[in-house]
């Protein structure tokens, strides 16, 4: 029995999808097993079987608690944040046609931090939802400000190849980081301040199940949006005017996708703080591996982002025995050199 060409494409796509999902599962398992006290895979699998399928393996309740209440939600959150931030970066890079665009550099993360901190300090309930809402408002305000600044400087969100938006983003980041510090210094008590500073640097140790139920749907929605708009994103390859002449409602696509980006970033920031470089570096790595077509690039970016952040989290917990590094330190250690490579290659491009 032979397959037709389109069936073959379908099968190979299915194959790649399965492979990707397998990689994600392996990464999550590794994220659970590795830690200050390593836990054997068999115990991890038995715990998961007990909790999910109701089987009755006899296990140490402490191990079970660590696995189910701490390490599993942490690994899932890491995966969601990694894929969400990477997807956001990819969308911004494609829409703005700027290789350096990413929620962190464009000030969206900083705005989200300010929003989340303002909500926490003002005591409008420190629940995950209200913090996320505050972060979303902050993210949208920050991006709007950055876009206006860039446009006033002659760049604008529709122009290509200009550095204005990145420069404006850096200015915006500084402004919102300063605002965050101001709010903390002025209004937070010492204990609150310590907690917020720890969270701001990017920290997954607070990840629990309620956060999972927020992060998973948002990450999936972000991924779905970029798969739905894959052809529209492709059409931006030659700029916004060219996309428009290919039938893309440019303004609407920009507003919808940048809105999704702000939402995903805001939720992730409100859960784990602001983590840099994931959104910048991962999409470039994915382009290098699977090419520039967004139908493939989107899922690949999400997957690589998820695996990357789980790995970075494991490293941050184990690299110095007995001490947890902020995860942003790991991503920056990988990201900064990668950033330099992108800058240098961008300069050489015709």
């Amino acid at each position: 029995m032979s397959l037709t060409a389109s069936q073959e494409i379908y099968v190979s796509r299915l194959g790649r999808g399965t492979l990707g999902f397998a990689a994600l599962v392996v990464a999550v398992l590794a994220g659970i097993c590795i830690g200050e006290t390593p836990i054997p895979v068999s115990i991890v699998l038995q715990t998961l079987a007990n909790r999910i399928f109701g089987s009755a393996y006899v296990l140490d309740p402490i191990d079970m608690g660590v696995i189910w209440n701490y390490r599993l939600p942490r690994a899932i959150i890491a995966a969601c944040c990694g894929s969400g931030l990477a997807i956001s970066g990819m969308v911004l890079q494609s829409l703005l046609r700027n290789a350096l665009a990413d929620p962190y550099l464009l000030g969206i993360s900083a705005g989200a931090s300010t929003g989340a901190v303002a909500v926490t300090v003002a005591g409008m309930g420190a629940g995950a939802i209200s913090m996320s809402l505050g972060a979303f408002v902050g993210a949208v305000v920050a991006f709007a400000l950055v876009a206006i600044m860039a446009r006033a400087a002659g760049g604008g969100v529709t122009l290509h190849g200009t550095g204005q938006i990145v420069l404006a983003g850096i200015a915006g980041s500084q402004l919102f980081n300063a605002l965050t510090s101001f709010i903390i210094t002025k209004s937070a008590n010492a204990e609150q301040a310590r907690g917020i500073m720890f969270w701001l640097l990017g920290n997954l140790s607070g990840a629990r199940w309620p956060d999972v139920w927020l992060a998973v749907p948002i990450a999936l929605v972000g991924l779905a949006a970029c798969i739905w708009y894959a052809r529209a994103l492709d059409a931006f390859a030659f700029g916004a005017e060219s996309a428009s002449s290919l039938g893309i409602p440019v303004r609407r696509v920009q507003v919808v996708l940048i809105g999704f980006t702000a939402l995903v970033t805001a939720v992730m920031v409100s859960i784990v703080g602001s983590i840099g470089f994931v959104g910048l570096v991962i999409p470039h790595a994915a382009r290098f591996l699977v090419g520039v077509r967004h139908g493939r690039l989107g899922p690949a970016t999400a997957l690589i982002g998820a695996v990357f952040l789980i790995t970075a989290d494991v490293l941050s917990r184990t690299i110095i025995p007995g001490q947890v590094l902020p995860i942003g330190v790991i991503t920056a250690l990988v990201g900064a050199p990668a950033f330099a490579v992108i800058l240098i290659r961008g300069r050489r491009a015709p």
Partner: protein
Amino acid sequence: MILEAHGLGWSVRGKPIVTGVDLVVNEGETLGLVGPNGSGKSTMMKLLAGIRQPTSGDVRVKGEALRAMPRRAVAQLIAFLEQQAETTEAITVKDAVDLGRTPWLTPLQPWSPKDDLIVAQALADTDMEGFERRSWATLSGGERQRVHLARALAQQPQILLLDEPTNHLDVQHQLSILDLVAKLPVTSVVALHDLNQAVSCDRVGVLSGGRLVALGPPHEVLTVERIGAVFGVRASILTDPADGTHMFRFHPAS
């Protein structure tokens, strides 16, 4: 009356760039637009393509106001070849031409073998077969222009708007591309710099300072006096002994 403009104008920061253009393009004809640098040819093309909104007047396609139509419906009717469109993305020739199918696809109506055939035909028409896997950055200027044209053809439009489609092409491809456009069963508006090429259009419009100063059959519009007035050069008309056609030669005005 497939495409028409009434009192079309576009200004930026109070400065008029295109003013009061009335234009009716007939179904199936090839209309040439000529004019000096900065006379508003590209702006006119963008207004006709609907990717810039006129500040006065309007554009109608098949009697329907362009600004009221969804972008997708417009792109199924009109393909636009920009004067300059570059990318830093590492895309291939096939990727670039595939983009032409965008207005015909949705997430629920995905790519089909029929689209592959259309893309292959567009590549053949522009003499770019065998380049499918080449990356954009490695193409020469003329090859890029032919890929852009292939993308416009893959859009299967009824109206082709071409902004200087021949400006990077070698002599052979200039002729073959213009010949292809003339033979296609589509209506086209072509901005051109070579007045000898404009002569072979069905009609020619002359833009000067953002106004359409003349419109009609080439031999009526492209007179020695008008060329002198609009372009500031002295033209003389030569006759090709091979077939008796006329062509221009240009000299500095003074």
